[in-house]
């Protein structure tokens, strides 16, 4: 009964012909209050986890969100699924504004937007059988598929590569990779149109990661589901997503299709991020060397982010303008359509080695100075 899982053809054709976005987010802001003081605890500040975010996800596409910890990518995922309520801004799902929608209003949409969580050990209820976990969403939404829920669960288990006989087992009987497959099956149970996958493979071993990535890719292709793929691993995001957005301190600093972001990045942070990825070089010696950029220090606190461009405190090109004026997210000249960058002084669109490495870290610079 695998045919059941193939979604109506109309959905796919619509994705091709009508570029109408599935999900549109504009000016999204989420501030978490910081309380302090005694005896009366007042709000003394705010963690500006997400601060003015615009993004669009089209039907059937895979949209990657990369960034370091604390950049707000997980918060964004939770806002899109409306597990969190945005402080301001709008989230539009298929033309319907859901940014502040109530429980009742959200109910039909909830089944169309599903989530896959990072930790397969804490995202499955240890006291429920796999069958119960996967049929849970159907039960809540009062869906009884043809042939009964149990049959559907068995189909789903088969889709994600698990033995349908394991219907009555408990999560602890499965390995990490298998548990993540259960999480995927649960997300697929309601035939969603959008899945938000928050670091779906980072808790898994290297040899297992590929299994789950392949499964997600298979699901995405076969069922035409749109994905928001949140991860910190740049190579995996590149492998999985057609469009990629790079986040830094609650903002998107660069967004574009995969090839432009990875081969022709313009924002200095994207350059730094790509150059920091440790890579196994399998190519021959004479292939072009990658540039080497070593930033100094860590990401600043999102409680008091820098003024203007948020990356300026770690940027080697920062000037007065960067502190005074926030760079808009625009298409720079020479960039492909849809490749937007928020930078006053963008870099050249290449990732090849420069004449001189950029080493901002004082300790590294000192040690390397000594050697030369």
């Amino acid at each position, binding site marked *: 009964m695998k045919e059941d899982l193939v979604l109506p053809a109309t959905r796919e054709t619509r994705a091709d012909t009508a570029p109408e976005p599935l999900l549109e987010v504009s000016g999204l802001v989420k501030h978490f209050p910081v309380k302090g003081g005694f005896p009366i605890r007042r709000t003394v500040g705010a963690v500006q986890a997400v601060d003015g975010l615009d993004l669009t996800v089209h039907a059937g596409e895979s949209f990657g969100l990369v960034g*370091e*910890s604390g950049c707000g990518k997980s918060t964004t995922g939770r806002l899109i699924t409306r597990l969190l309520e945005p402080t301001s801004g709008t989230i539009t799902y298929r033309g319907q504004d859901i940014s502040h929608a109530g429980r009742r209003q959200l109910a039909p949409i909830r089944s169309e937007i599903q989530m896959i969580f990072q930790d397969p050990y804490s995202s499955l209820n240890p006291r429920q059988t796999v069958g119960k976990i996967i049929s849970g969403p159907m039960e809540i939404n009062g869906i009884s598929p043809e042939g009964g829920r149990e049959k559907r669960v068995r189909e789903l288990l088969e889709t994600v590569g698990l033995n349908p006989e394991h219907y009555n087992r408990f999560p602890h009987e499965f*390995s*990490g*990779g*298998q548990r993540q497959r259960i999480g995927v099956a649960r997300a697929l149970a309601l035939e969603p149109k959008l899945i938000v996958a928050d670091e779906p493979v980072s808790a898994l*071993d*290297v*040899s*297992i*990661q*590929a*299994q789950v*990535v*392949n499964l997600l*890719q298979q699901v995405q292709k076969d069922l035409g589901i749109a994905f928001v793929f949140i991860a*910190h691993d*740049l*190579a*995996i995001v*590149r*492998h999985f997503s057609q469009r990629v957005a790079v986040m830094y301190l609650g903002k998107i600093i660069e967004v574009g299709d*995969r090839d432009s972001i*990875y081969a022709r990045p313009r924002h200095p942070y994207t350059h*730094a*991020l*790509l*150059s*920091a*990825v*440790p*890579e*196994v*070089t*399998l*190519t021959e010696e004479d292939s072009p060397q990658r540039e080497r950029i*070593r*930033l*100094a*220090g*860590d*990401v600043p606190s999102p409680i008091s982010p820098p003024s203007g461009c948020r990356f300026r405190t770690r940027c080697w090109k920062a000037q007065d303008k960067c502190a005074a004026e926030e760079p808009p997210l625009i298409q720079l000249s020479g960039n492909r359509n849809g490749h937007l960058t928020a930078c006053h002084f963008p870099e050249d669109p290449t990732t090849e080695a420069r004449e001189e490495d950029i080493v901002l*870290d*004082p*300790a*590294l610079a000192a*040690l*390397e100075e*000594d*050697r030369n």
Partner: protein
Amino acid sequence: MTTVTKAEGAPAPAGPEGFLSVRDLQVTFSTEDGPVKAVDGLSFDLHRGKTLGIVGESGSGKSVTNLTILGLHDPLFTTIDGEIVLDGKELITATEKEMEKLRGNRVAMIFQDPLTALSPFYTIGRQIAEPYMKHTGASKKAAWERAVEMLAKVGIPHPKERARDYPHQFSGGMRQRAMIAMALVCDPDLLIADEPTTALDVTVQAQILDLLKDLQREFGTAIVFITHDLGVIADMADDIMVMYAGRAVERGTVDEVLRSPQHPYTWGLLNSMPRLDSDLGTPLSPIPGSPPSLLTPPPGCRFHPRCTFRDRVDGDRCVTERPLLAPDRSSACHLGAEQKRTIFIEEIRPRLG
């Protein structure tokens, strides 16, 4: 790793050489479910000033090996056999007092999670100064100055003031820098780094890795670098040892292991990992199945249940016979040398893009 004279898995290894040499190490934990052989007949050598990278998945025994070198296992539940010789000194039979003199002094360790490895009760400066006082007999003041000097060396801004801070006042990257300062304060000959950058962001990871490399050049420390990330290993190590289910399955220099790997498990790792320049059209080829339980490890080659090349070995040697790992460049696999080369060139290499 050039002087092992007998193959791994074979009994009675010959006289060790090199700065650190481990011979036929066996570590068994007794658990409620029965004995778990976490490390099974491991041998390797490390020379001064060199870096040995140990790669493997969780449960492959890479961390257990290194905790054994430091003598950090509970003797009540652990049986250790074999030989660990550091600069002519046998460590397995060493008394606790002797080990105490060694730890933090000649052998130091950097742990994965600096927040749990640092004490929340003491200032960073004090935690760095303490081993220095203990091992060199320096005065409190001299040790404090040394701590500040080390913090400056690892790139903590305003080290004088920051030495008085507590770990929670440091960011993740700075804590790991403080851990490195603490590990290097007594100028150790051997540094064991157990996944030192796994908890860090990429840009910070790049800083820390470069810092470790530069400090190694300056201090001439030998490093055992444990990680699951082949990219990090490629960046850091001189030699690589790939571990699977408690055994080493392949070893060689970085170039040898990464550019012409010979073991099906290493092929699997390389094939299952996307790279920034890999071909986008081809799906990843994961290793089927999952790592075995060490309570009931598979007989013969421990990788055989997941191995896609098993049928190319005649008979059932994979199931019955443990493949030996020769010293130097080698892989523990029953496939013939010529077979390995052709499989890699014809079937594995093209898929790597």
